[in-house]
């Protein structure tokens, strides 16, 4: 059952990165779009994700519940040492969720709209930035549960170059996912071209940020290169992701957009795979060589039994309904006026 639970945990993180990520990305695109084109971005976005908006963000909750039920020590250690970035991320989630809803449901259209839009775009940037910072910190070896002074326990655990570059990389990935997603949702060539340019922009940004991540890892003595290139799984994943990227640009250039989304999804999956594979099952690497492991720091057998069963039963209900929802609105998209 432990493996079932771990699989669900990994899958929810991946799905949150893909679906939630594309969703954040849409806000990030708004931030990088000229005023004139913002409106169309917003409409395309809304018709694309309106119906599945709530569902996209459920994956985060599932991941958190799995952590606190199945791996309570990991959850509570992270909660203590990552208190500040987690709080900032939560504020981002609050601001973004409410701004998104308000701008759509406000019955009166006036100046308030531009306030909602600004809040939405900024929080769309902040939230994945801090998600990335937290993710980066887990493997950076900066977390020190034994620390007693405030700065090293609660600040330097996350405020360092590696975490920040991972945060920026996450933001770029979100923008990239969203642009690719929106290419398929546009109904005319002009918009399609615009989103293709955006995809290109974020793709380059992701590559640049990726290099910064490697640079920071060298600077802070984090064996990232070892993890990524030191084993066959990593090498194959990176090579296939690169090949699929080339294929993607080829297809885009020739106006074939059908395969773009699966390819972008594939690339992000490969990135998550390479970065988690090598140090699995140690998901949090602590200062001084200690670690928190999914194997050694899991809950008792009976808890994992129950959790695994609940997840399996849950997915029997959820997955068909979710696919039907996506299918229904894919077939006949919303008309937003």
């Amino acid at each position: 059952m432990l493996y079932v639970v771990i699989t669900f945990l990994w899958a929810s993180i991946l799905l949150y990165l893909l679906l939630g990520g594309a969703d954040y990305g849409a806000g990030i695109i708004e931030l990088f779009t000229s005023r004139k084109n913002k409106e169309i971005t917003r409409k395309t976005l809304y018709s694309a994700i309106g119906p599945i908006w709530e569902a996209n963000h459920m994956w985060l909750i599932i991941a958190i519940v799995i952590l606190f039920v199945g791996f309570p020590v990991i959850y509570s250690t992270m909660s203590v040492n990552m208190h500040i970035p987690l709080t900032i991320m939560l504020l981002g989630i609050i601001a973004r969720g409410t701004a998104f809803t308000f701008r759509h449901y406000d019955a009166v259209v006036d100046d308030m709209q531009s306030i909602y839009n600004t809040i939405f775009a900024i929080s769309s940037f902040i939230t994945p930035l801090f998600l990335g910072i937290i993710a980066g910190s887990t493997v950076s070896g900066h977390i020190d549960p034994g620390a007693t002074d405030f700065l090293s326990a609660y600040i330097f655990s996350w405020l360092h170059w590696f975490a920040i570059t991972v945060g920026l990389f996450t933001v770029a990935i979100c923008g990239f996912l969203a642009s690719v997603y929106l290419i398929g949702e546009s109904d005319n060539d002009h918009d399609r071209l615009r989103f293709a340019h955006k995809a290109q922009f974020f793709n380059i940004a992701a590559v640049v940020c990726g290099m910064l991540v490697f640079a920071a890892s060298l600077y802070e003595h984090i064996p990232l290169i070892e993890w990524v290139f030191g084993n066959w799984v990593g090498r194959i994943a990176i090579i296939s992701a690169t090949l699929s990227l080339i294929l993607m640009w080829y297809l885009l250039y020739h106006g074939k957009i059908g395969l773009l989304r699966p390819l972008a999804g594939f690339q992000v999956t490969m990135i998550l795979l390479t970065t988690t594979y090598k140090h699995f099952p140690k998901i949090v690497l602590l200062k001084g060589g200690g670690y928190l492991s999914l194997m050694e720091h899991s809950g008792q057998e009976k808890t994992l039994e129950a959790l695994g069963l609940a997840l399996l039963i849950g997915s029997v209900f959820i997955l068909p309904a979710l696919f039907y929802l996506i299918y229904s609105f894919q077939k006949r998209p919303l008309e937003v006026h």
Partner: protein
Amino acid sequence: MNDFIAARSQMALSLGFHIIFSCIGMVMPFFMAVAHYYWIKTGEPVYKNVTKAWSKGVAIFFATGAVSGTVLSFELGLLWPGFMKHAGPIFGMPFSLEGTAFFIEAIALGFFLYGWDRFNKWFHWITGVVVGVSGLASGILVVAANAWMNSPAGFDYINGEYVNIDPIAAMFNAAWFSQALHMTIAAFVATGFAVAGVHAFMILKGRNILFHTKSFKIAATFGCVAALLQPLSGDISAKDVAVRQPAKLAAMEAHFKTEKSASLIIGGIPDEKNKKVDYAIKLPGFLSFLAHGDFKSEVTGLDKIPEENHPPVTITHFAFQIMVGTGMAMMLISAIYFFSHFKQKNWLKSDWLLKLFAIATPLGFIAVEAGWTVTEVGRQPWIIYNVMRTADAVTPMPGITYSFYLFTAVYVSLAVFVVFMLYRQIKMVGKLYDKY
């Protein structure tokens, strides 16, 4: 304010905020389903308008409820890591099932909100009902988790270790049924009275009478049926608390001395130092009856409980009085409503009845907040009753006071925004829906 008090206040604030949204998220879908049903059956456009107008309100509340809930699932760890480290694996079962319920709710809401004129009309109707049913299910599950904190079960606590964990037994702890029943009915009371009150107010102002009359009737019927049932379920809860948590019952009643034929105290100001209550009305024997169903039985007072385990008496007592007081008031209004419905139809058209409902708008939610204060403050100083102290669970991080100020500011502005948004929705009813 020290960090410990700040952490408790932040938790209370977040939960007190979330509960409003979750009540509405649980109950409004049922109101909508009724209006929607009438629309499908009668084809009267006003019912379609009511359904649509309500569904916009629900979407706003749902999204706000979802973010405040997401915040809570992090806050449990951010504020109470010592608690979650041990409690997570034991009381996690309801949360893992709740994940499914949330997901279904979110999916069904997607179908319902965006499904007008797209799907078979009965399929569309059903998706609305599914939103309500899964909302209720998640409410019941999370209350079962809270009930576990009041009556821990499903583990053995030996030498500071939590062993022999059984998550299923933990979920079906001794308090889950009475709490879940009482909470579910409370959600209907609170939402019913709030919605009915707003529509009654709009009728009084003479706006869109047909629209608001139909809405009022649906909401008032739900609210009033629930308000009549609530004291019964409250009685079950009280009897249950008397057995499980005598300290909480004693605090609720400001009952300082153990005695037979104990009196029920109405009103009054507890004097915790001198262990007495000033200015109270006493009904001899009634507390014994309420707690154990027998006028003569003995009711444990705070004197039998070690001082360091006393909950704050004044807060708990006042909160309990407020809950029962508002509960009785709403029961009375409901009785009048049904009486006029069956015997005095002309009262239904009268201004005073509508005014009564308009005044009662916040009563249900006041009762909900008060009731949770009773439950949570009455459990102090324990976070897990008789097992772990709240003070031992709090995060070691200093500076929680600032976090509390920050979250207070956020929640206050959020509340202002939501009210502003609803005001704009209601203001637009005339433009959007009054073509008839």
